[in-house]
């Protein structure tokens, strides 16, 4: 299944097993460098240097979620998804596969769709995070893509829906003139079990055509 706009971990590392399995110390040099730099601003100049070890004790993390900065103390092993769900009670993004396959946890990080289960919260430190709740709030309760989901019944149990909504929104922003086929190709990073793909496809087509308002 070839996909052109699959959500990717912003650091370029897409396997959580690697990130979590090797332990926090080994991460610093490569994968977690952006987080180290971001945290460094708070922790002092030395902490920004490559090779800095975070944890295992909790560290200060500032998550800029839906335009509000939330100060947390989190163990470095806490994923962005778990930080949002378990520490900020933002439960729109869902935990399903927990290994970057299904897309139910999709949020926007610096405007780009990522699997939040495969980003560490410390990596997201200081960066702009937009969740499905934020997308609705900034549009008075429902963004155009969300209205198109409702109108086309692009949801049954609804557990994949928040992730699909964010993936569609991300695709729409990046590809405003996309065709239906391109949209289907771009949404290959999200899975649904109830089988709502027909509705989702129509919802994204409608949203691309400007339906659902602004």
């Amino acid at each position: 299944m070839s996909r052109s706009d699959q959500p990717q971990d912003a650091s370029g590392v897409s396997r959580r097993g690697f990130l979590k399995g090797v332990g926090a110390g080994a991460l610093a040099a490569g994968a977690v460098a952006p987080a180290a730099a971001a945290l460094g601003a708070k922790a002092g100049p030395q902490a920004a240097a490559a090779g800095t070890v975070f944890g295992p004790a909790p560290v200060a993390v500032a998550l800029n979620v839906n335009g509000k900065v939330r100060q947390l103390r989190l163990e470095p092993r806490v994923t962005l998804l778990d930080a949002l769900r378990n520490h900020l009670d933002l439960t729109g993004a869902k935990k399903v596969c927990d290994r970057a396959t299904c897309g139910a946890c999709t949020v926007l990080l610096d405007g780009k769709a990522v699997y939040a289960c495969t980003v560490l919260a410390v990596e997201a430190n200081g960066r702009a995070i937009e969740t499905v709740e934020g997308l609705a709030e900034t549009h008075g309760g429902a963004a155009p893509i969300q209205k198109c989901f409702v109108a086309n019944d692009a949801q049954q149990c609804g557990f994949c829906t928040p992730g699909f909504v964010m993936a569609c929104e991300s695709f729409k922003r990046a590809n405003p003139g996309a065709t239906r086929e391109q949209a289907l190709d771009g949404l290959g990073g999200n899975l649904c079990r109830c089988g709502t793909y027909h509705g989702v496809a129509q919802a994204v087509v409608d949203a691309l055509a400007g339906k659902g308002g602004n």
Partner: protein
Amino acid sequence: MADLAWPDPKDCSLLGTRVPRIDGPDKCAGRAKYTYDINRPRMLWAKFVTCPYGRARVASLDVTPAQQLPGVVAVEVIAGVGSELKTSFQEVACIAAESEEIAREAVRRVKVTFDRLAHNVVDDDVAMAGNQAKPGREQLTDDFAEAIGGAAVVSETEVGCSVLTHCCLESHGSVVEFGEEDGQPVVRAWCSSQAVSGVGGEFAQAAGVPAAQVRVSCQHMGGGFGSKFGADLWGALAARLARQTGRPVKVMLERDMEIALAGSRLSAFGRMRVGVKDDGEIVAWESDAWGTGGVNGGMGAPGLPYVFGNIPNKKVKSTPIFTNTGAQRAWRAPNHPQMCLLTMAALSDAAAELGMDELDFFRKNLGLTSRADVYREELEIAAEMIGWKKKWIPRGDQGDVVRRGVGLALHTWGGGPHNSNVQCTLHPDGAVELRCGTQDLGVGARTTIGIVAAETFGLPLAKVTVLIGENRYPQSDGSGGSTTVGAISTATRHACVQALDKLCAAIAPEMNAAPEQLIAKDGLIRGRESAAGGVPFADACRRLGAQPVVTMGQTQRGNGMSSSQVGGVQMADVEVDCETGIVTVRQMVAVQDCGRIIDLLTTESQVRGAMIMGVCAALYEERIQDPVTGVVLNPDLEFYKLAGIADVGRLDVHMMQTPEHVARGVIGIGEPPAISPMAAIANAVANAIGARVKRCPMTPDRVLAALKT
């Protein structure tokens, strides 16, 4: 008296139309709270130590290193030393900790060793399963040998399908909390459950409290498909650990346990022989089928041949195989999709053997089904929709690398209603409230109740409040077997009509009308013939006085309210790349009857969803067991494959809604359309490549193997 019967479709403004679901806005804005989303103050997370082998005995177990980890609050040993574990991922111990991360780390610290025991995970070969295969009694009709011996053609088919899992995106689990309500002790149990009214007793038992104290809640659930009726061990553990620790406890399965343990669909394999006359009439059926439902065996109803049950001469044998794999649970139309595959593949092969168009062959033999007229009409419509006449060409007539094919299958289901109670409250300010202890698996239960109530009172949907998913609300049976919609729709109608009667009686004197002359329409209580002189609904409700009107409705059976027994037809158009073995579904059509439809939009969603599940079963998903270690090899969504949005092709749905169909009343739609798609796709692939792929999912290697034979 207001008429209990469903109104004429032409008088309906909501009923039977395309109505977006009530809870859609909450679901797609992330506001809908599922069990997995429940966070409580001081809540603990629980995770499991599980068995790493197909079958083993616990040889040693030391949980001390886990208990010593800061943040670990409680450890419960489920399988102590000497206990036998019958499948991989079966629970050994459960650890509750301050955070999910700590619970996971504690699981890794437990020191446990196992003595491995002999296991069987083989389900596709009766001989290899040895004494774990338990042959059933053969059914043989008197004239079978003579009939098959005298047949002009006897076709042979070997086909089967792997074990699937329900793979609910919200895994099984519960959050349990001991608390107080109005000064009384209560146990709150949030549970992802298909049986909200019924599951409280399990929590009560585990929590050690009277059932009256248990408050079960399931406002939204992330799929069930037949796998979520009970609280299960996992819910019971949440209750026990909450009692032990005095803190709320969340137990949600991780994906590996969900796939390995939390429900699966039986595998089924069969060797079939079909005897036919020259003109295509089926005269004899022989089948030898086997399959597994895991540790609790398998097979069972419906028998073979499926749908064509009236084939006169039969020899039928089935052999359940016990395997060391997670137990089967009801999976959307239990055992029907599998028996449909075995039957429709065998009949399709018989048609091919005769050189007959599959569609003509099935049509010719409809007399062997119990709903010939329904199927005949549906086949006609489906063939037209997919363009069968233009697309069908005999098997083996294509030499291209990429070959096209069409296939079809038929199915049947009951879908009669279960028992449901709905309470209607009509407030003096005109507010309407419906309460029912049913649950919404994702099919639109809330919306169903809302549509029926709004239609009955002549109000817009937004004026009706629907409350479901709590065991405090009036009892409603578990949702399974397409039984819910017929129950909650008729019970709602029953409750609302009684309330409307009381309202009409209260307002009739000042309208100078007899109550039975009044109707509720377009926001008014008005005369039957004309809107003139009508009173706005809320104004009419003020005449009720200070007290609300409260009525209870129950499931209504027969009399055009609800019914059962439906038939459906599906056809598939596929493309097969004979170099890579990759199958692409280009188009599928579903023609289905389900009596009177409440919401056409959510009904079509459910039918398309069922077709997509069929695409997954036909081409992608299967649970794979390692014969050497006995473990599940793909307990994740990376290798347990589901179709993506670009993999499903065009899906067209036609719901039978002639006056005769509508007059039958409401019938459930959850199961029927999930039965045929796998078989229809399998037959389309056979039509394309001129050979029978022996097993679903028809992965590229299996397609290429079929091409070589």
